[in-house]
Each structure stands twice: as structure tokens, then as C-alpha cells.
């Protein structure tokens, strides 16, 4: 418990406090009066209103489109299911700068909708909403689908036997059991869309602005730190509230249900209705998720003989001092380090949270660990700069800062994945082993490890993928001249010339493949009772 708390305090709470203080403290006195000034500005109120309603709308739309998919993944068996489940998760870990560009090919000019019906959605709020669905589809499918697969279908069948209509049976038996998972997923989607940055920046056009975009603008363009600080605090309060509600629903969900092994609940589709449902879900997935990804891949192959990929190995290409392909290794190195840190911090926190005598304080820490997901990367990045600048913690120029920042984002995922499993380990098994004379190390190796091994690997994979795709914090941290993959993509995209653009697409494809491979490995290891994502 101590280590995660210290980590969290030093690498999150302190830097964020420092940057907020820089904006709000004058002559040693906090000036909270600024808050009222800023919040009552019409522009800011407009931003607050837009941020909230687009997040609500995105969440509703995501649930509408992803819940049927969650059902299909949970209850139906079909070939390629594992691959497809990995594919729907890829967008979640791709950098928005890449996806935004690809998504335009779907909803923009000359995109599919334009070709078919002459409908163009770019720079409308629909583009933002659809892109949010694209990114968060997996959150619902995994959170809700995971639980759905483990609900005993016999309960619903029993209700049917007793004469309930299919819909009534579903509404009165399955839905109440699922409700906490749906609520938790909805809250996560709301959190991610409330703090949306890249999507709004790229797809929304200049008329739409979220709180996160405004914080970025005030910090990095206008340099009005006091407005930025107020907005950061506003977002903090909002996100804190969301997380508190989330923690509450998750706890409720962990209590009552009796679950079965997911392999036993799925079957091949039966009857026209189920086939139609499967077809509908597949069509949605292909149109909404696969198509933008495919556009990326196609553009990367536009040069004869894999020309863009070959150009990646060339150090004299112009944009970098090292060959762009080198970014793959840099990214992998950082991701490995970030995964190690995230596992250590997240694992320890999960272990502490899993203890049955964990008090209110400890459980509050659970929500606290999630906070980095909801705080602007630019805030954390600038905070690092002014907080971690004196020995012994002068880390500003150290490579370790990048994996540390990524681990901040990865650790919550580790906690979410490990916690349910650790809570499920029967303490009596350990006691029995100890009574029979096993040393603590042996108890860990032979009781705990086999039980949590899969969850551990899954957590590792998630932390790995998240850190691989992390862009926001990474780009703010001064680093030696070794860009990570998403940063390299952004740099290539910021220069004119088709060779640069093609290389950006090729690098994105590589990033996608690496992410997908990591997730596919996870799929193989996926087992019951593991995690909410």
C-alpha cells in the first residue's frame, strides 16, 4: 500500500498541485476567487455545456451500438470470434492523431457515407460522436460482455419455462443482473468522452471545444495558467464525481452474482433472429471499426513494393536523425519499462485493495488511482517540469519520465484487471498450504501464482498496449531524440509531401499490428472472472 501511495503522491498529486498552484497562487495566497470569474465567462460556460452533453450523447450511442455486440460475444459462438474481439479493442489503444485521420475516410468527403448517400459528417457533432463510439466500443463489449458470458443462462430459461415472454424474461432476469456492469461501462465511457481531446481536435472542427481542449489551449497556446488551473480543478471535480459513482457501482456488482464458466454459456446461433443479430453486429463492427483501420493500411501500401515501409529504415529521410523504424524499438523499450512499473504499482495496490479487512480509506484509494485517466496530459506534463526539477528528483531529462507517465495511465488498468481475481482467491487454500508446511514463497508460487497468472499476464498486456499508444503525456516530456511510435507518426504527419504521409501511415499500421498482436495473445489467455475491460 505504501509504495503505490508514494508513487501516486510523487508522480501525480505533487506535479498536478504544483502546476495548479502556479496558476492560482499569487504572493503565497490561493486565489480561489478566480474560479467564479472564469466559470461565469460565456465562452467557458459554452465549453462546459458542450463537454457534458456530447459525453452523455456519446455514452448513449456507444451503449446502443455496443450492447448487442456484447450479447453476441457473450452468448454466440462463431469462427474468428477471438480475432474479432482483439480487433474491436485495437481502436482503444491507437493514438487519436492516427485514428482521426483514418476516421475522416469514413465520414468525410469521398468517404463511404459520401459515396453511398452523399452524407458528410466531418466538422459536425456526429463525427465526434461516432468516433467516440469507435474508441469506446471495446469498453462496453469487454465490461458487459465479460459478465454476460458468465451469467447462468438457465435462470432466464427457467423464467421462460414459467411462462414469461422472451423480452420479459430478459428484462426481469438478465437485465437486473447486468445493470451494474452496464452502469460501470457507461461511466467509463462517459469519463473517456468527457475528457476527449484528439477526437474533438481533429474531427470537430474549430467550433467545438471540450474542457480538455480548452485546458490544452490555455496552457500551451495562450499561456494563461490561471484560467487553465481553474479549468483543471473543474475537470477534477467532475471526474472525481464520476469515479466515485463508478467505484460504487463496481462494488455493488462484485457482491451478489453467482457466475458460471463462460465456455458453457455460448452456443452457435440458432434461428433467424440470432443469425440476424449476429449479421447486424458484424456489419456494425466492419463499418464502424474495421473500415477506418483498413483505410490506414491501404494508404500505407500505396507506394509500389512496400516503398513506404522501406523508407522507414532510411535514416536520411529527413524528419529524424535516426531511421523512423527505430521508433518501434524505442516504443517497445518504454512500453516494457512502463509495464513493469504499472504492474508493480497496480499489483501492490490491487493486493492491498483485495484484503477483506480493507478499510474505507483504502477503498477510496481505488478511485484515486483512476484519477490520472481523467486529468489532462498537458497538466501532468507541465507539472512534471516544474515539480520534478530539484535533486534528488531531477528527472526532467531522464528517460524514466516517459515510462513513469505511461505507467500512471497503465496502473488503473492493472488494478481493474487484478482486483476481481485476487478477491476471488480463497484464503483457505493458502492457510491449508501453510498448515501443510509450505513457506510463504512456496504458497505464493503454488497457490496464488497459478490462480492469478492469467490475470497478471492480461494486466501486463493491457498496460503494455496502453503505454504503446500513449501520446498525450509522452509528447510533453522532454526527451532525447528518440521519438516513440505515436510521436513519430505525429511528426511525420506535420510535414508536407506524400512520402512523409505514406511513412506515417506505414508506422501507424505497424503500431496497430503490434497492438493487435499483444491483444490477441491476451485473448488466448483470457479466462473467467478476469477483469472489466
Amino acid at each position, binding site marked *: 500500500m505504501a509504495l503505490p501511495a508514494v508513487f501516486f503522491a510523487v508522480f501525480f498529486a505533487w506535479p498536478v498541485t504544483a502546476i495548479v498552484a502556479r496558476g492560482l497562487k499569487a504572493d503565497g495566497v490561493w486565489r480561489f476567487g478566480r474560479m467564479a470569474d472564469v466559470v461565469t465567462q460565456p465562452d467557458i460556460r459554452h465549453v462546459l455545456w458542450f463537454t457534458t452533453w456530447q459525453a452523455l450523447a456519446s455514452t448513449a450511442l456507444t451503449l446502443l451500438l455496443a450492447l448487442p455486440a456484447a450479447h453476441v460475444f457473450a452468448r454466440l459462438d462463431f469462427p474468428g470470434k477471438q480475432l474479432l474481439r482483439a480487433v474491436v479493442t485495437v481502436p482503444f489503444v491507437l493514438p487519436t492523431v492516427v485514428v482521426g485521420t483514418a476516421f475522416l475516410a469514413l465520414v468525410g468527403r469521398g468517404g463511404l457515407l459520401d459515396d453511398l448517400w452523399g452524407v458528410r459528417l466531418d466538422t459536425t457533432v456526429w463525427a465526434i460522436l461516432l468516433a467516440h463510439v469507435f474508441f469506446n466500443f471495446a469498453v462496453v463489449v469487454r465490461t458487459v460482455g465479460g459478465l454476460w458470458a458468465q451469467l447462468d443462462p438457465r435462470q432466464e430459461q427457467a423464467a421462460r419455462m414459467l411462462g414469461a415472454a422472451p423480452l420479459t424474461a430478459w428484462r426481469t432476469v438478465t437485465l437486473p443482473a447486468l445493470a451494474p456492469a452496464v452502469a460501470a461501462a457507461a461511466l467509463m465511457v462517459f469519463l473517456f468522452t468527457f475528457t476527449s481531446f484528439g477526437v474533438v481536435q481533429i474531427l470537430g472542427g474549430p467550433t467545438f471545444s471540450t474542457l480538455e481542449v480548452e485546458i490544452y489551449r490555455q496552457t500551451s497556446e495562450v499561456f494563461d495558467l490561471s484560467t487553465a488551473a481553474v479549468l483543471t480543478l473543474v475537470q477534477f471535480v467532475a471526474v472525481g464525481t464520476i469515479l466515485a459513482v463508478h467505484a460504487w457501482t463496481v462494488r455493488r456488482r462484485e457482491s451478489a452474482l453467482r457466475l458460471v464458466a463462460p465456455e458453457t454459456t455460448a452456443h452457435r446461433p440458432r434461428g433467424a433472429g440470432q443469425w440476424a443479430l449476429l449479421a447486424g453486429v458484424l456489419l456494425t463492427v466492419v463499418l464502424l471499426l474495421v473500415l477506418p483501420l483498413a483505410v490506414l493500411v491501404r494508404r500505407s501500401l500505396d507506394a509500389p513494393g512496400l516503398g513506404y515501409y522501406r523508407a522507414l529504415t532510411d535514416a536520411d529521410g529527413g524528419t529524424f536523425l535516426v531511421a523512423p523504424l527505430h521508433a518501434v524499438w524505442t516504443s517497445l523499450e518504454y512500453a516494457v519499462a512502463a509495464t513493469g512499473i504499472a504492474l508493480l504499482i497496480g499489483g501492490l495496490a490491487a*493486493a492491498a485493495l483485495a484484503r477483506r479487512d480493507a478499510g474505507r480509506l483504502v477503498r477510496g484509494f481505488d478511485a484515486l488511482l483512476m484519477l490520472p485517466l481523467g486529468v489532462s496530459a498537458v497538466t501532468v506534463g507541465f507539472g512534471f517540469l516544474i515539480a520534478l526539477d530539484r535533486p534528488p528528483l531531477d528527472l526532467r531529462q531522464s528517460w524514466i519520465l516517459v515510462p513513469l507517465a505511461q505507467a500512471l495511465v497503465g496502473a488503473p488498468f492493472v488494478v481493474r484487471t487484478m482486483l476481481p481475481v485476487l478477491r476471488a482467491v480463497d484464503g483457505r487454500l493458502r492457510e491449508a498450504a*501453510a498448515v501443510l508446511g509450505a513457506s510463504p514463497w512456496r504458497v505464493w508460487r503454488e497457490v496464488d501464482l497459478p490462480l492469478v497468472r492469467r490475470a497478471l499476464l492480461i494486466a501486463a498486456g493491457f498496460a503494455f498496449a496502453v503505454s504503446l499508444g500513449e501520446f498525450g503525456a509522452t509528447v510533453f516530456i522532454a526527451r532525447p531524440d528518440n521519438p516513440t511510435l505515436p510521436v513519430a507518426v505525429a511528426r511525420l504527419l506535420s510535414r508536407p509531401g506524400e512520402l512523409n504521409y505514406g511513412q506515417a501511415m506505414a508506422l501507424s499500421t505497424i503500431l496497430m499490428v503490434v497492438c493487435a498482436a499483444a491483444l490477441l495473445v491476451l485473448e488466448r489467455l483470457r479466462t473467467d472472472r478476469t477483469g472489466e475491460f
Partner: protein
Amino acid sequence: MHNKTLVAVATGLGLLALPALTGCGSQGAKDSAADSGTVTLVSHDSWLVSKSVMKDFEKRSGYKVKVLKSGDAGQAVNKALLTKDNPQGDVFFGVDNTLLSRALDNGLFQSYEPAGSDRVLPGYRVDQDEHRVTPVDTGDICVNYDKAYFEEHRLTPPRTFADLAEPAYKNLLVTENASTSSPGLGFLLGSAAKFGKDGWQDYWKKLKENGVKVVNGWEQAYYQEFSGSSEGRKAGGDRPLVVSYASSPPAEVIYAKKRPDTAPTGVSQGTCFRQTEYAGLLSHAKNAKGGKAFLDFLLTKEFQEDMPLNMFVYPVREGAAVPPDFAKYGPQAENPETMAPGTIAANRDSWVKSWTSLVLR
């Protein structure tokens, strides 16, 4: 019992994490050097110099150069300002005329007049009393046009700011959000320089009526909306006029899959705004001597002639030659609009604000 579990889990995780940490450990040692043998340059993401040129400097001066790139131009300056009492490096490169006053007023730099300052073309010199910054490169933000489109439609490409508001060019121009994009801001400042403090709003009203499209970033404008760039064409871009740089046409040639004979795009000479980038010795620099040597290096003929193909900018030193390809496809603007950094500083925020409510709302 639970405590033991905790320890066991921790040990297990620790062991898992250990190879990860040590695997990168060797990298850490490299980074910690802050001795007088190293000079540290803080810059934005566009900084680039040929390896051989940098090696020459390191060999000649005896310093090792470490480069910290920290985001785009605005971010890099703001980060430097936040850390000015305990800077991350010795030299900062990449503050342009739109941000210069912010840097100078906040005391980011200390005085130093590099060797070779007398060779800087007179038009670019600033801060002649205190010599806190040195001009290093220059470039122009200009409207680019799609040659094919204008040939096909038998239309003369626009030449001036005023032309862009003509009905003949209705719905043809795409520009960037002045509050989030540096070319977008440059174009706004250019129009303000052209039409004056009181005239630019009228001009933008006309542009708006003439169907100007505004997107957030240069990437979208150039790669999605502009019909003249290779990628914009593929994406079905339908705007043959875009606010970009005078050096964009040579990039279209140099980075083409198959090299064309002429650039597919041209520059509207009367729509340009001049941007100059400066470098300076950071206040509280730990290696001021090395920083000074590096500033000298930035004005050498060797570095100045190396810049164009790396950063797509023009030299400011007299007699520095520009590579023929670069000069041929992207000549420097002849009579660009300019604005004094002080005027920009005094008006920038309020202009951007009224531009936003005028054009975007």
C-alpha cells in the same frame, strides 16, 4: 496471513518488473551528464540538422550537443518560460516573431552577441540594444494554390489578400484556426498588417461571406481539404487554395514518390506573412560558455546552408547559398507582410479573440 500474501505478490511482481527496469538502465547513465563538456539545446519538434554538420561542430568545439525537443513551437516556448529559473538546457532555439515578446518580457534570455551577428541581413535584426536573441532562420506563411485546378478552370490564381475575397474565388480557400495553429495565426497577422488594426475585421467578414473554410490544424487543411497536395487529392480535397508555407511546393517535389518536373503547387506572392525564428542563451544556463559557442555555430555559413532542406526555412546570413532545388521550387516571398514583435504582443490575444467570434461563431 494476508500480510504474507501481500509480500508474496509484491515479490513476484518486483521480480517481473526488475528485468524491465534494468533493461533500460544503461540508457539512464547516458542521460545524466550535465558537465561542462555538454551543451544542451532546447527546441521544438521541427529542429533538425544534418548529422555531419553537427559532428563538425562537436569536433571543432569539443562540446557534445544534447537536443531536447519539447512539443510544437508554442509548447516549447511556454515550457521554457515555466522552467526559466532552473532551465533544462543552455540554448533555446525556435521562438518566432509571434511569441518573441512573451519570451523577452519574461526574462527568458541573457545577453550575448554571437560571432557572425554582423553578417545577419539587416532586415532580420532585432533587440539591437541588448542582444538577447539572435535571428536564425526565416520563412513565409502564404496561400498555396493547386496549379492543375486553375489551369483546368482557366482561372488566374489569386495574387493578393484582396483577391481572396473576390467572387471568382468563392468557396476555394481553406485556412487554419488562428487560436490553435501557427500558420492560421500568421495568416491573420498578415491580414492585420495589410489592412491595419481597424481594417482586418472587414476583410475577414468578406472572406467569410466568400466561403472561407476554417479547420483546426495545418495537417487537416493540407492533407484533407487542399486539392493540390498529393494526399489531399487522394482524400478528395476540393479546396484549391490553402494557407501553408512558401516552402511547401519544394517539399511536394522533394518528397514525391516520383519526382515531377515542376511543383504541382504555387505560392500567391501577395498573401505572405514573414516568420523569423530566433535563438538565445537561456538565463541561468549551466554551461553558458558552451551555449555561446553553439549560438556562434547557428550563424555559421555551414549551418545556415544546411537548414533549408532539413527545416524547410531560409537562411538569414548574407551570402548563405540555398540549395538549387529549394530555390527553384520555393523562392522566398518578394514583399511579405511583416509586423513588429511588440505590435504582435500588444494585440495578439485580443485579435485572436475577436477573430474567433467573428469567423467561428
